[in-house]
């Protein structure tokens, strides 16, 4: 069981959280101008990172806010958390 740090509530049990996929995926402003390939890339294609992964979590049973997490997908170690709108830690690959 992971202890996950909500940026507002502090450390809480993993059972209070919901995973919400890769972070920093921006919805295209003009979807109607995209090709099917570009739209499919936005909808479905993810980095599938081995190592540091920037991802969204929601404190579903607590304050019900979304936030971002930097997690090592090999060790599950959570290296940092940051609020929506805040820049990701370090240099982004």
């Amino acid at each position, binding site marked *: 069981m992971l202890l996950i740090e909500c940026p*507002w*509530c*502090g450390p*809480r*049990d993993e*059972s*209070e959280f919901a995973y919400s996929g890769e972070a920093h995926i921006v919805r295209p402003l003009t979807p109607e101008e995209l090709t099917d390939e570009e739209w499919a890339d936005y909808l479905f294609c993810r980095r599938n990172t081995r190592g540091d992964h920037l991802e969204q979590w929601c404190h579903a*049973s*607590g*304050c*019900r*806010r979304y936030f971002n997490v930097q997690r090592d997908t090999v060790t599950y170690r959570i290296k940092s958390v940051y609020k929506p709108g805040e820049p990701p830690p370090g240099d982004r690959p």
Partner: protein
Amino acid sequence: MSDLRQESPLAGFRSNTAAGEAGSPGVILTERPFLGYVNLRGDAGDATFLAAVEGVLRVALPLDPNTIAEGEDVTACWMGPDEWLLILPPGAQTRALAALGEALAAHHASAVDTTGGYTLVNVAGARRRELLAKGCTLDLHPRSFSPGQCAQTNLGKAGVLLIPRGDGSDAQSFDVIVRRSFADYLGLWLQHSAREYGGAGAAVS
């Protein structure tokens, strides 16, 4: 004239008290039905919003996560960075909503009546923490959870808002606020979990 009466989500449990109990129970469960609840949302960084709300409630909204502010007849609970739950005496939500609506007319804010969506069970008794710890992952020790704080979390399989109550750091009791659709489940869970601490002494009264 129709003969209407209010019935709390735990009305069935209340009648159980009549079964009669002896000795001092380790856990005392007491429903406080029909309280007024208002969900309030607005920009915590906007001083004019905060002032407008304080003008109505006569208490400042709590801005620290998971804390409460108590006014004369209102408890304001932090629910999120832009969200609070106001707990009021039965019926008082009507006047509060009207006053908030007027005070916040020029703000990007909302005050919604959620009365009837929740009920509250107070958990007291010497074994109150052991009871809650059976179904809650929070550290309930007074050093980390004491009066002045609140927390949304899970109790059993139900989402709840927990509020430690009393004077000083050691909460004499905990208010458990639960959605009415989960009240039946949580009432049964509490009674079942309390059995070993107080036998028949544990009943939602």
